[in-house]
């Protein structure tokens, strides 16, 4: 699945104010609400669900990136928002290092295959050092959008 099929570019947070995990998740969900992608009345419940999932096992995969995610009835299609932090966020990552890019993913409840397709795309790119470097360097929403669109156009990139 291409980034532009599930990433909400309008909800990019170029500098997360939070320095803790739950704060960062809350900010990204607020950005999705502001972009009209999640009903505001669902925000609290989605936030709670993402944090609950994160408490079960950290999605801080190492190398400065975390991919918190949950399946929730508030969305009909896979939806993602990306937040950047120049100071770093403690996500209890596998490598115990701070996280500089948070990719929040909300998937519909009854479509596990779509969730896996989005994850496949995210991790295929995150494995590449060059992609991670550019991701971290994208300090403006437009830069991030360019990066992801470029990745969509060049799958082998």
């Amino acid at each position: 699945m291409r980034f532009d099929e599930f990433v909400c570019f309008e909800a990019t947070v170029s500098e997360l104010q939070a320095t803790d995990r739950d704060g960062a998740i809350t900010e990204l969900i607020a950005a999705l609400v502001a972009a009209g992608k999640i009903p505001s009345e669902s925000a609290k419940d989605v936030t709670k669900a993402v944090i609950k999932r994160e408490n079960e096992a950290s999605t801080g995969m190492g190398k400065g990136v975390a991919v918190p995610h949950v399946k929730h009835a508030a969305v009909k299609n896979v939806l993602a928002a990306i937040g950047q932090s120049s100071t770093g966020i403690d996500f209890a990552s596998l490598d115990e290092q701070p996280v500089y890019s948070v990719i929040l993913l909300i998937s519909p409840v009854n479509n596990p295959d779509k969730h896996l397709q989005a994850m496949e795309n995210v991790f295929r790119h995150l494995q590449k050092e060059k992609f991670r470097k550019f991701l971290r360097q994208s300090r403006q929403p437009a830069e991030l959008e360019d990066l992801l669109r470029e990745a969509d156009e060049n799958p082998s990139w």
Partner: protein
Amino acid sequence: MGETVLEKLVCETTLEIKNAEGLHMRPAMQFIDLASQFDCKITVSNADRVADGKSIMQVSMLEATCGTRLQVRAEGPDADRALEALRELVEVRMFGEPPP
């Protein structure tokens, strides 16, 4: 099922994903945790996607939905035991998750 090549055991098998949600991150974590307990090198592939069976980032990009048949290759002294344990996790225990 193994053959000894230069004192190295190489085993290969096919494992079918049977839980409804597929190999999402939590099962992927269980997979790499188990794989990492063995000394052998473990490679997992889904068609043309090939992953190091001990890397969460790589296993997460296999896009192994329910019904996917993964090719798993183990190379090393405990290769046969590793594949046996992984089969138990994937096909018998189904990562502790329900089938469709």
